[in-house]
């Protein structure tokens, strides 16, 4: 059976590397599934999860946006940060969510609402992935 080499790399180092049968994720233009033999493609990603199907099991990786690069035998995800679902620190994610919410409610000028919203979305994404596991 044909497989795809999937790797997730971040500035802080590679996060994930494996051979898989299918990768699906959410791009900015919609949900996207990649099977082996896909034509070369580049797509920007949403903050969300990457599902990697291999040998009957599915692995989840939380990514904070970034890019998806597809080659016929290879998928590379370039994200500014990414974590495997079982490595997510739930307590830290919850703290980050609470902090971001507080910043959003604070209506004073020095708060960058867009950044706070983005960090809230990243935190919620991590929490939902971590909780799905347990």
């Amino acid at each position, binding site marked *: 059976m044909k497989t795809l080499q999937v790797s997730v*790399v*971040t*500035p*802080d*180092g*590679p996060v994930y590397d494996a051979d898989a049968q299918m990768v699906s994720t959410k*791009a*900015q*233009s919609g949900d*996207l599934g990649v099977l082996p033999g896909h*034509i*070369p*493609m*580049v*797509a*920007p990603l949403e903050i969300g999860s990457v599902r990697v199907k291999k040998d009957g099991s599915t692995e989840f990786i939380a990514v904070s*946006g*970034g*890019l998806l*690069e597809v*080659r016929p035998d290879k998928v*590379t995800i*370039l994200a*500014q*940060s990414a974590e495997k679902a079982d490595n997510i620190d739930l307590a830290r994610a919850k703290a980050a969510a609470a902090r971001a919410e507080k910043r959003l409610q604070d209506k004073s000028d020095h708060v960058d609402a867009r950044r706070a919203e983005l960090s809230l979305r990243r935190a919620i994404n991590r929490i939902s992935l971590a909780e799905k596991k347990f």
Partner: protein
Amino acid sequence: MASLRDIKTRITSTKKTSQITKAMEMVSAAKWNRAVQNAKAFQPYMDKIQEVAASVAAGSKGVNHPMLVSRPIKKTGYLVITSDRGLAGAYNSSVLRHVFQTIKQRHKSQDEYAIIAAGRVGRDFFVKRGINVELEIVGLPDQPSFADITDITGPTVGMFSDGTFDELYMYYNHYVSAIQQDVTERKLLPLTDIAPTGKMVSYEFEPSAEDILEVLLPQYAESLIFGAILDGKASEHAARMSAMKSATDNAKELINSLSLQFNRARQAAITQEITEIVGGAAALE
């Protein structure tokens, strides 16, 4: 000649200093190791993003993104990466001297440039000379993660996009080896020199090349800054390590020559005492 006690005091204090520099050397060696590892871990990401950026930029001729276009230059930004603390040999001074001279050569008036300072030493240097420091980041950890530096990369790239700067240069110490670090100048923005990497692939763009560039280019520019900071950190720890090593060596040398002086002075005192006793005994006979 200094008295026995004076020399003794100097020996003791030099010994104490050498203990401290020795400890600092070992701490820096450990940090240097980690910093080099971090820089290595970052490399696959940089290679990949470079490859994709080159392919996309080459494959989308006719598509223009503001970050790719050279504008008429009204104001230049200089991103200068230094350390927060001193005692790192020529690490900071060589970068700062280089930047200062470049600025003097290129610009006539203060309005033509501004500094973005990463590191306390660099910031203090420019503030003291009355040069406009637009943005500063101090207190970076020794092993910065990407999240730590988004405070500087985001706004820096933003300042180019909103027209504060029309071009942006980056200065840092490039790490060559434990004993060699070179001051490097790199033009960061506009991205006119995305080097083709050889294995170009023609991609399908989803949804379009413009949208990809919109995401890719800021991320690419930020990665370049992060790479320079990691490189700078590796250089910083290497520079501090060798500075502390030579300080320890110098202290040892000093202790040796002081001990020699001390022994001579002690021997001279003993000889003098004996002469006095012999002289006294001879006078009695």
